[in-house]
């Protein structure tokens, strides 16, 4: 039988550093997509009971580093961290997408400026505080972006686009650093 080598989506591509800014691959974590069958009310209750996480409002997330729920669209969320209990599947289509996403962290002074070159949404702290989530375009790609700190963001893009993601963000990092002089 073939011996398959497990590789993370950005293996060999990251980390990248430019003038205090860094782009790193986040530690691999379980990622599950929850799409409620009939509204999110019952699913929210089940999620709270099973994992202690509230149902995220549009554009928001709940929980903390090791267990989070990110809003992913109407009646949908991404569960990060815990393996979901089977009972959740009674209320939603539950899909394991752990290997489907390139999941990277952009941090350092000027992280906002880097994303401002790629993303048509205001991601400054006033409009996009910690825990906020946006499903939007990153250059030509669909992405999900969440703020994790004053100068740090996590970005999710489809795994097949990992190389493009790293390229686009790295180029924007370089240009922000170059303009700083």
């Amino acid at each position, binding site marked *: 039988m073939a011996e398959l080598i497990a590789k993370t989506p950005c293996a060999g591509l990251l980390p990248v550093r430019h003038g205090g800014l860094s782009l790193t691959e986040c530690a691999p974590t379980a990622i599950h997509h929850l799409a409620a069958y009939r509204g999110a009310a019952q699913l929210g209750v089940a999620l709270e009971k099973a994992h202690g996480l509230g149902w995220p409002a*549009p554009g928001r997330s709940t929980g903390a580093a090791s267990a989070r729920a990110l809003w*992913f*669209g*109407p009646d949908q969320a991404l569960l990060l961290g815990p393996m979901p209990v089977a009972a959740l599947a009674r209320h939603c289509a539950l899909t394991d997408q752990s290997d489907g996403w390139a999941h990277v962290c952009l941090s350092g002074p000027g992280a906002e400026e880097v994303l401002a070159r790629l993303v048509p949404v205001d991601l400054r702290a006033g409009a996009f505080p910690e825990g906020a989530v946006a499903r939007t*375009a990153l250059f030509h790609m669909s992405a999900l972006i969440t703020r994790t700190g004053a100068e740090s963001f996590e970005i999710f893009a489809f795994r097949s686009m990992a190389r493009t993601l790293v390229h686009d963000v790295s180029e924007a990092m370089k240009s922000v650093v170059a303009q700083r002089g």
Partner: protein
Amino acid sequence: MRITCPYCGTRDLREFSYRGAASDLERPDAEAPPEEWHAYLHLRDNPAGVTRDLWYHEMGCASWLVVTRNTVTHEILACDLARDVALKAREAKR
């Protein structure tokens, strides 16, 4: 052009893709006369003024929207979830 998604707020045009007239939501009954089906499938208005279109928030929350806009002034007058529009129309039929 910017479109205000009921879920995501005001977003840039590049996040959306266009489908066509919102009359696509008003599908006739299966037994409706051929003329009605012909009108539904093939006949479209091309107004200089207010029009209603279906847009898809493709690079965002993946909602279908009914956008009411003015083709002369480019003003956007309303953005509603297509689901709500369709459900309301179904209620009105009853």
